Each structure stands twice: as structure tokens, then as C-alpha cells.
């Protein structure tokens, strides 16, 4: 069983947000509900200002605080290490959203970012079972994994495109989008990333390219001090802007 992880090279990332749009279309999220977001930070003042950005998917923690707090066990970790939500069990209490240190969980019934609300324009005829009905629905729906159009009143989040990665051929060390035979199993954000700033592979396989990158380029994790043990690593290169709290000898 692989332990899927992601590596994001911030030196290559151009802040284009293709990961965000690819994710939102693949997973039919409403505008602004960015399971995969890019956060922008402006610092300093002309003529010496700086401008940074941080792409932020779900960190898919090994020790996820969201799972610990969920009162109905709706959110859980799969055997291959992905944190998912079972919409049949989720009661929409939002405790997990508060517990998550990374702000990567979303509640369906928020105020719409844009008017008119897409949920009214593409209204569902399935009542509460489907919060909206975009005309381009991802054909793979699986409520037990939080995949598909969200029903009303549940929390949702990045699944690492579980409907894709879970079908990958066994024993693959990395899901490389350049490989025509693997591209269909690659998470949307990794597949589309034009500067190839994202990598996806098996963290349990010492031969995997993701492990090589984490080792050679000193991958760091966000808010490692929380003990959540994310499986998303960042490479900061020369332009690094992520503080590295990681003690590599103790983590994972």
C-alpha cells in the first residue's frame, strides 16, 4: 500500500492558480471554495517591495487533528494515507474546520462569493442531496469518500483526487503526469501544473522521486510544530519563504 504524498517546489511555482481552477472543475466546487488555493502576500514598500505566494492543498496529515475531533467519525484516513470525509456521516458541525491548522476545509452553505449564486443558476433537482448541479459533473460520485457534488450541510475538502489515485497501478513509485500511461491517475493540480512545480508519489518507497526531492532539496512541511505530520512537502529553493521547523531525524 503506498503512502501518497505531494511535493511543491516554490522556486518553480508561478502563482498562476491553474491548480486551483483544475481542482475546482475536477471536483465541481463552487467558485471560491478552493480546496486547492494559492495565498498571496505582499510585503515591503516601493521600490523594494516583495510579493510571495503559497499554494495550499489539504496537507493530508498523518496525524490529522480534524480526524481526532470529528464526533461522528465522518472524517477518516484511508489505508493509503488520504484524509477523506464520508458525507453520509458528516453532520456539518464544523468542528474539523476549527481543528484544522491549515484552513483547508469548507462548508457547503457559505454565502456565495459571486452573485448570482451559481447554486441557483445551476440548481439541482435532488433537493438537499445535491447542493447544485453544474452542467459538467465529474462522473465519479462517491459520498463515502467526499467525492462528487456536495449535498447540503456537509464539510468538504481536497481528496488528493482520490477517484484517480486510488485506481493507479499498484507498485508505482510516482504518479508522473508526463507518462502517458499514468497521467489519468494523477491529481488534477499536479497534472496541470505548467512549471512542473508539483510532484506526487509514494512516501513509503525510498526510490520514489518525491522522496529524492525531499531529501536532496530539503523539503519542509507547514506548521510542523503542531505534530500533524503533513504529507505535503515544500521545496523552498533560493526563493524560499516557508520557515522550516522540521527536525528531519524525528519526523515521519
Amino acid at each position: 500500500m503506498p503512502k501518497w504524498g505531494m511535493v511543491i517546489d516554490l522556486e518553480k511555482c508561478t502563482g498562476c492558480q491553474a491548480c486551483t481552477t483544475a481542482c475546482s472543475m475536477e471536483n465541481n466546487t463552487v467558485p471560491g471554495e478552493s480546496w486547492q488555493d494559492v495565498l498571496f502576500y505582499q510585503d515591503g514598500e516601493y521600490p523594494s517591495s516583495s510579493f510571495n505566494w503559497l499554494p495550499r492543498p489539504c496537507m493530508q496529515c498523518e496525524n490529522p487533528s480534524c480526524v481526532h475531533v470529528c464526533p461522528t467519525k465522518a472524517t477518516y484516513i484511508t489505508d493509503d494515507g488520504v484524509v477523506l470525509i464520508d458525507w453520509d456521516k458528516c453532520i456539518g458541525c464544523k468542528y474539523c474546520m476549527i481543528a484544522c491548522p491549515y484552513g483547508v476545509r469548507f462548508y457547503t452553505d457559505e454565502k456565495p462569493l459571486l452573485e448570482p449564486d451559481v447554486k441557483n443558476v445551476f440548481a439541482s433537482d435532488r433537493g438537499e442531496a445535491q447542493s447544485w448541479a453544474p452542467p459538467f459533473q465529474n462522473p465519479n460520485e462517491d459520498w463515502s469518500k467526499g467525492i462528487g457534488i456536495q449535498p447540503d450541510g456537509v464539510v468538504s475538502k481536497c481528496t488528493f483526487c482520490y477517484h484517480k489515485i486510488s485506481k493507479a497501478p499498484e507498485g508505482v513509485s510516482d504518479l508522473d503526469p508526463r507518462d502517458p500511461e499514468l497521467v489519468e491517475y494523477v491529481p488534477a493540480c499536479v497534472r496541470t501544473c505548467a512549471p512542473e512545480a508539483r510532484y506526487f508519489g509514494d512516501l513509503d518507497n525510498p526510490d520514489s522521486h518525491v522522496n529524492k526531492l525531499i531529501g536532496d532539496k530539503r523539503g519542509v512541511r507547514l506548521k510542523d510544530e503542531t505534530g500533524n505530520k503533513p504529507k505535503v512537502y515544500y521545496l523552498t529553493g533560493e526563493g524560499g519563504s516557508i520557515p522550516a521547523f522540521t527536525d528531519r531525524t524525528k519526523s515521519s
Partner: protein
Amino acid sequence: MSEQPFGLNRRRFLQVSGATGVLAGSGLTLTSLKPREALAKQNPDARPWGSKDTKITKSICHQCPARCGIDVYTTNGRVHGIYGTIDHPISNGRLCPKGHLGTYLLYDPDRFKGPMRRTNPEKGRDVDPGFVPISWDEALDLVAERLNNLRKKNESHRFAVLYGRGWGASDAGLQGTFGQLYGSPNIAIGHSSICSDGSMIAKELTDGNQSYNAYDYDHTNYILNFGAGFLEAFRPYNNNMQVWGRIRTKSPKTRVTTVDVRMSTTMAASDRALMIKPGTDGAFALAIAHVMLTEGLWNREFAGDFRDGRNQFRAGETISPDNFEERWVKDMARWWNEEVKDRTPAWAAEITTLPEQTILEVAREFGSTRPAIALFERGPTAHSNGAYNGMAIHALNALTGALFAEGGLFYQMGPPYGDLPVNADDYMDDHARTMQERISTGEVPRVDMKGTDKWPMVKNMQQEIGPNSLAADPYKLDTIMFYLNNPIWTSPNPQVWEDAMRELFVIDTSPYPGETAMFADLVLPDHTYLERLQDAPTYPFQGFPMTQIRTPAIKPLHDTKVYGDTLIEIGKRIEGPMGDYYKALDNTENVLRHLAKGFENNPGDNGVNSFESWKEKGVWYRKPYHWRQIRGEFYEWDGERYSKQMSEAEVAEKLIKTPSGKFELVSTKLTNHADYINRELGIPRQRAGMIQWLAPVYTGEGNLHLVTPKLALHAEGRGANLPQAQAYIQPIAGGRGNIYLEIHPKTARDHGIRNGDKVRLKSNIGEITATARYSPGQRPDVLILPMELGHWAQGRWAKNQGPGHSGELTENKSDAITGLASYYSAMVSIERA
């Protein structure tokens, strides 16, 4: 260029999977098993997406000029996904943020559902056109009747077609013959003068190629970027980002200096961000040239050298022309003596507001790094001095020897299309021949006055058409048709176009209810791109010839017609031989089949040799580019390598196409128009051709520069009705569902404006409102308002969203030489609303 995949190669897969026993009992031999076959053995129905009914169609994205190959995923007649095509040379399996949103463009609930006729004769912003559906036959007959009548009255020149994104031979490519057969100089007029003609014409004036460049970014070690939104809007955006990932992690890392008028993602990602005063890029470029010459950093093999090998370029001192032996540049001594010798970093610092030391450092870096590219397009050229700014920047490419070199820049080869089944010359009637004569003698000028004494050197002057028709100078149009063109929104001072379009019979072919459509008398809606069959040869990319094709992913959702067919169907209804010509063309698919015949004897690198294989792969291409300059000598490709050395005459014919056959530091063409330049720009006649500093003339009124960039999610004006695009737009000011006016806090406070205040922007032609956002990283003398929102039509999400439209503050002024609208020269004032 392509690397081996790093992750699972077949051998590793087999090693790993063999070790874990996945294949045990499968009965297959290890050497023949591919991962997907292995998967199929495990679970025949397993597909990452949808079901076995999921179909992938090859198409080409439509949201910018780049033409990325896309895989369109369709299940049960519904498109539900778009990803880059893995074996397409531009997209390489990747997309920019816009690419994925194409599905929304298909399912836009505000699309026109079929042809419609206006019933309300009154036209205006908030006036309901009263559109009623009509059949295609009725609609096309209505157009043909008007056009036949104009011909009978000898007024065929009063029919104009204006187009935006011309994709290829099966749409915009058909328009030229339509004009020839119908008898109008105004079919068709492109939008290039509101796009980036400044760059094309600056290149024509210096190296003889009226074109954008192809670039070899992968092998360059320095990019000096003048205002190109390389990581936001510069084409091909998606491929630029792929390039970025490589050049910024290769050894040596390609160094990037970006000069722009605002902080952006491109600026932030570069090694140096130089925020220059708008319109002064030419001064900066000339100072770099000055340093490269005085410090001996120019490329002697390309530009030439002093006969005694000793550098005699000293600031403020002239040289003797006899002492300098030129190679591929012309008039070096004169350029130095009359211009560059005084263009010191200290001089440029005053004009550009950049520190002298920084200018010096950048010049030394650029001059001492090879290969190096000086990159520019619209930013420095959308000003009154755009031609000279562009020429000064392009001169740096000559000084560093980047032209036609590895790691440099060159031009684009075209595809080997087959001939159409009929030749338009055989179908001209007396009227067409008479009009051809009247047009060629200048008796009937183009309505935009291109090629007249008013605009002698331009390619197009679309921005003049509305005002000219309104003023009946040179004449009033009667009927005007638009293809992918929305001038009532995109033109500078578009308010005038509203008045102009009230008088005309307007035909719009957009699938979307844009501003121009709201003034239309007839709507002949095109398919959206995922429904189209349409060719799209590449824009300048890497030089090698390439042409793509869109194939419909699904049947048209509505009663629409692809524009090429609309044009052909109108043509069939014109009386006389013109109608016969279009009957012979029949339809766009027939046109495309004939074009594809050219591949039979020129199979592409991917095996495409027919119409069918072209559709299957989505692209025909054949590498490499055929010419290369190596250490000051030019060579042609012999099929295996660049071995055939070219004579000066061959270089002049094929590559450096100026009258002199050299890169002209004093342009022959401009010199030939010295009277015009003297009259329009006040430059002494004898200096007209010189690449020189000319101070910009700002338009509007007020003391703040209005900067109106295009953002990464700007899908050529159609992004405004994409809810997802609007949700993520304008990262720098934190825009979410809005476009903010970025303002330096000090400037804001001076005007009593708090962060988040509603503000009013005023120029001499109009005023708009916006929401101010403090942005301390920006220049205090600029206001940044991206051109994106402020639509008063275009669909429910676009309409009346966000701030006003920047175009309504932008006076209609253009560079006299290139004709490029001076979009970036506007000055405005600001106050709390």
C-alpha cells in the same frame, strides 16, 4: 528538450510490481506488460474518470492566442473535463488557469441559442434590443439582400468586417477573398492596432520582419523583460510557465530582470524587479546599449568591431565611421555619434526614475551573459513613442547577437497547407475588378485610412473605424459585421463607438451577449470552441511550422453555426460568380480537407499526413526551425544539421528582410517617411530613421498614470462571465470576486482615500468608479486597474460587476508610426466617491 520521465519507467514498474507479486498468475510475460494493461487485467472497468463511455476529443483552447492542445473529456454527451494534450508541443499536457474553465464557456447559460433579429430600433446601453429568433435561412437571406443592394448601388465598400482573434484559414482566412470578390477594402480589418502592432512594426523597421518573435528560451541564460506579463498574459502563457520551471532550475539558472510599471507575479518571480516610469523603457534600453558599447560588451561577431580591435566608444565622444567595420548591423557609427554616446545611465536615471547604479548593473549583466534575450511587446509600445521604444529594446538583441541564434529569437515558419479547390481570381466580376482598381489607386481608401497620408505605415487602425464612420470621413459605413471582436467595450474611448453603431446595420457573430451584440441588428451566433471544427496555425512559438485543429467534442448545444460557414453561406447568396465561388468551397470542412492535403507530402513529426490523422492528433508540426546564426555566420538546415552557409543575399531574402539586408540602427523605411515623422512627432527629418529617445506624450488629464494590465484569468474579454475566473482573479490586491484599484497608501492619503474606499477616477473623456486597495509595493505615481470588469453586458456574472471599465478613461490616441492605440499613456485624477 524533453526529459525522460523520472517516476515510473517501465523497468522500475516491473521491478516493483514483480517484487510485490501483482502479476502473479496473470499469465503474461513481464516484458510485454504495460501498467495500464496490468490495470486492465485487474479490473476491466477501472477508469479514473467516468466509464468506458468516456471519450477524449483533441481540440485547441480558445481563451488566449497561445493555442494549447487540449484533451476534452466527454461522457454521455456532457463535457466534464479539459486537460492539456500530453503530446502537443505547446501544452505538453499542461494548462494555464483559464484552460480548465472552457467547460463554463460551453455551458454559459447566457449564450445565444440561435440567430436573432432586432425589433427595437433604438440602441443604447440599457435598451432591450428586442431580439426575436429567426431561422438561419431568413437571417442569411437578410444579410445577402443588403450586400447585393450595396453592390448594385456601387457602395460595396460600405460593408466592413472587423475581426479579433483570427484563428486560421477556415475562418478569418476566408475573409480576404470575400473582400476581393465582393469589392470592399474593409473586409476584413484586424484588431492588431489595439493589440500589439507596436512590437511587430518595431521589428519590421529594424530587422525587416513584421511579426512577433519565436524564442529559444530553453537555451538562453538571461532574459531582460520589458513589460511582458511573462507569467500572466504573454503568449504562449502556458508554455512560458513550463519554460520558467526549466530555466529557473537549470544550470546555470537563467537570470531574469523584469522592467515594468507595476508589481506583478512576473516581477516578483524575477531576480530583479525594476519599476519604471510609464513610457520610458526606450531611455532605459538606450542606456544599456551605451554601457554595452563603452564597456566593450557587445557581440562583435554579429555587430562588428573596430578595425584595430580597440574599443573607441567613450561617453560623449564621437567615433569615425571609417574605424568601425559593421557585420550584420547598419549605421553603428552614426547611431553612436548622434544618439547613444550621450545616453548614459545618469541620463536615463533622470527619465526612468530607476537608480543610475541599477541601470549600470543590469547593463553589465545583460551585456556579459550569453545567450541573452531582450523581450518586449505591448507594454513599452502602447505609448506615443512606442515605435522608438520598441526599436531601442530590439537593438539590444542585435548588440548581444541574439537574432537567429541558439538561445535567442527568430521568426515563425508557416504550415504547408494544400490549395483550396477554387481560385478566387477566377470568380471576379466587373464590379469586383472595378473596385479592385479603385482601391489600388486610392480612390476608395480603407475606412480606417490605413496606407493613406494619415496612417502611412500601419497594419490596421481598428480604433479609427467607429469615429471615422461617425464623422463620414472618409465615408460612412452601411453594414458592419464582427467576428470575435467587441469594440464597443475594448476600444479606447468606446463611448464613441456606441454612437457610431447606432447608425449602422450591425451583425455580431459572437456566441455571447457582449456589448457589441447589444447594438446588433442581427445576431448570427458562432459555435463555442468545444463545438467547432476549425484550424489554428501557431502564433510565433519556437519557429518550426505547426498548425492545430479543433474537433467538436460534442454536437452544438444550440442552433449556432461556425463562423466560417456563416461567411461561406453569405457568399453563396451573393449574385454572380462570387456565389459560384462559395458554392464550390461548400463549407469549412471541405476547406480544411483541402488544407490538409498539404500534409500528404509533408508528414508531421507525429505522423499526421491527412485530414483524419490531423483531427486524431489535433496538431501537425515538423521540427526544427530552418535557420541559425552561429558566431556571426548564418546557416540553413540540411535535414540533419545547420550546415549550409548562407550568403548575404540569402540572409537578406529569408531572414533580415530590411532594404539593406542588415539590422538597421537607422531605419530606411522611417527615413523614407521623414516628412510624416517630422509633421506628426516633431523629429528633425534627418533623424527620423534613428533609433532614439522620444519623450512620451501622456493623454488624458490628472497627475496619476493609469495602468491597465491584463491578468492571468483574462480570457480575451470572455472571462468576465466565468464565475470561477472571477473567483480567483487579481491575486496581488487580494481580489476575490472583484477587481480592485491598487494605489500606494501615500498617494491615497494625499487624496483623503482610505483602504477600501469607493473612488472616482476621471480623465478628459469620462469617469468611472472603483474600490481602492492600498498596495504599498506599487509606484506612488500609478493607479492600477486591470482591464477585466466594468461590462454592461456579456452575461449575468459580467454585467455591472466590479469597477468601471478602464477603456472609458482612455483617450483614442495612437502611435503615429505603428498605429498601436496608446492604451498605457492615460493620466487620470482620483477622488473619494
